[in-house]
């Protein structure tokens, strides 16, 4: 019994080393001078350049046009994360409400249309999607960044599942209490869904924040770059540089990672609940 427990701890400690090790090394290295990194490789200690590097990344104007700073990118990332999460919740909740609580002829048809979107991940329709956005004049705009991302089926399915689990008697009781469809939605369903909405918000914020492909092709003006999108241009600058600014690249990576990581850690239980429930 005792032996078993020790073995479990060994396995877990090794797992933690595997998962956290690269992040720790990346963080520590980002506190060094780029010349030192270039000469001696990635670092395993504290380099003392922490403030300098992060200040530079956050405030110094970078990119080719010099219009973007780390702070601005963070702001864009937050806009994308929150816009994506809120948009997705609103759109999928109303759609799920219509599908679950209304008797209408086209209900099943709409359900299958939503289902269809599962078949079309952004990656397989990327080129035509870009062309559509271009024709609508949505390139380099927050609308163009967020809107195409929010209408996938997962959120709708999630709320559909949840609404189905709400006891039918609540609807009946509220009908006897004289509530119409809009009142029922606002007075009963939305307050009941609060935990679910929060869980979905957390997950979607992380998913939105971490978007890469769409922002990469959608935004060519640097003022719309998100942190994750910015990683790409950082890489481009590193290639071909004499002594690449490894430290700044890694600092960017840390900045891009921190907010979603914090959100997940703070709301850990809700996050796990949302994640696991979502896939049911």
């Amino acid at each position, binding site marked *: 019994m005792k032996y078993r427990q020790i073995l479990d701890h060994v396995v877990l400690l090794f797992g933690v080393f595997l998962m956290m090790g690269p992040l720790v090394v990346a963080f520590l290295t980002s506190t060094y001078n780029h010349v030192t990194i270039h000469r001696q490789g990635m670092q395993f200690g504290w380099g003392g350049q922490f403030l300098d590097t992060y200040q530079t990344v956050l405030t110094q104007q970078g990119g080719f046009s010099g219009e973007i700073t780390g702070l601005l990118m963070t702001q864009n990332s937050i806009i994308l994360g929150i816009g994506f999460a809120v948009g997705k919740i609103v759109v999928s909740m109303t759609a799920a409400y219509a599908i679950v609580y209304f008797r209408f002829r086209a209900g099943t048809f709409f359900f299958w249309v939503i289902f269809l979107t599962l078949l079309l991940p952004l990656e397989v329709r990327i080129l035509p999607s870009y062309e559509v956005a271009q024709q609508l004049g949505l390139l380099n705009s927050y609308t163009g960044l967020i809107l195409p991302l929010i209408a996938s089926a997962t959120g709708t399915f999630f709320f559909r599942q949840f609404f189905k689990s709400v006891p039918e*008697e609540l609807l009946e*009781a509220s*009908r*006897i*209490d*004289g*509530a119409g469809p809009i009142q029922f939605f606002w007075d009963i369903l939305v307050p*009941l869904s609060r935990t679910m909405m929060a869980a979905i918000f957390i997950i979607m914020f992380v998913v939105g924040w971490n978007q890469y492909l769409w922002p990469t092709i959608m935004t060519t003006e640097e003022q719309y770059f998100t942190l994750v999108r910015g990683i790409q241009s950082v890489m481009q600058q590193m290639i071909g540089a004499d002594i690449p600014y490894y430290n700044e690249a890694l600092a960017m990576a840390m900045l891009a990672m921190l907010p979603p990581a914090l959100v997940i850690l703070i709301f850990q239980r809700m996050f796990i609940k949302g994640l696991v429930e979502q896939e049911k």
Partner: protein
Amino acid sequence: MTTLRIKNAVKRYPNGALAVEGVSVDVEDGELCVFVGPSGCGKSTLLRMVAGLEDVTEGEVELAGRVVNDLEPADRNIAMVFQNYALYPHMSVRKNLAYGLKNRGTPKAEIEAKVQEAAELLQIADYLDRRPGQLSGGQRQRVAMGRAIVRDPAIFLFDEPLSNLDAKLRNQMRLEIKKLQRRLGVAAIYVTHDQVEAMTLADKIVVLNAGKIEQIGTPAEVYGNPATTFVASFIGAPPMNLIPAEAENGAIRLGDQTLNLGLDHRGPVTFGLRPERAHIGASGEGLRMETGVVEELGAIRLVHGRVGPHEITVTQNADQPIPGAEAVLRVEASDIHLFDAETGRRV
């Protein structure tokens, strides 16, 4: 006056299944009417048709003198207590009670007064600011009733409201519901599958089976003169013994035994005898019974055994001697129920 009149109500689902087949019931003012029957007999469907939660396929539902078939539930002047209470989990008790009144546009002061009055009546005034999740089963039950009371309905509808409570609480709440209904003097329909609840609560019992009415009557009528074998076996515990028999020449033949009763019915019948109406003796006139297992219940005991090939159960006061392997059942002619062997109807 009649509060509720159900006339030839039929419920047919789109797939053709019939849940209720032509039921007619009247509920008088202040009457507590119980719909009782096994699960799937249509009793809940019928109640929900009265509430307006199910469409009425055919027939009429008439409440306080007007046909309400096409009215929304909120416009029918009914109140309902659900099996799982259906309290709004995110609202305080106070808001739960007030929600329906608020939707009707009742003035605030009046809502407040009504909520307070109902809360005091039900002794939940101390919990008004709690949420349903913080209450015990019995307290939730009271809140659900409170929500019904504040509406001042023409009729209360109870849908198996006690089935989520433990046995002790159930008995207590049952009594409270009855007292409350008497006190308010409002008609009520109470749906249950529990015949004890039905017997104890009802002014009028409606026994339903497979979407049809088997019998309507007072508890005493339904117990004393069951109209069918179904009612006979459903009402009363332990249930009535029902044994296939033959009636001829004023006598009943049960296997190789004959009971002389002076009846003028002939042909195959079902012989019915309530366990509590047979007297067990060691010898004498009557049905010979082989005794088997004996169950002690305290004041009485159940004696299981056989008459011929058929199983039979009779009760006996606990102060009587336990019968031996062979016993004789003395039976009064007036305690015997005979049903047509084919239709199950009383003869």
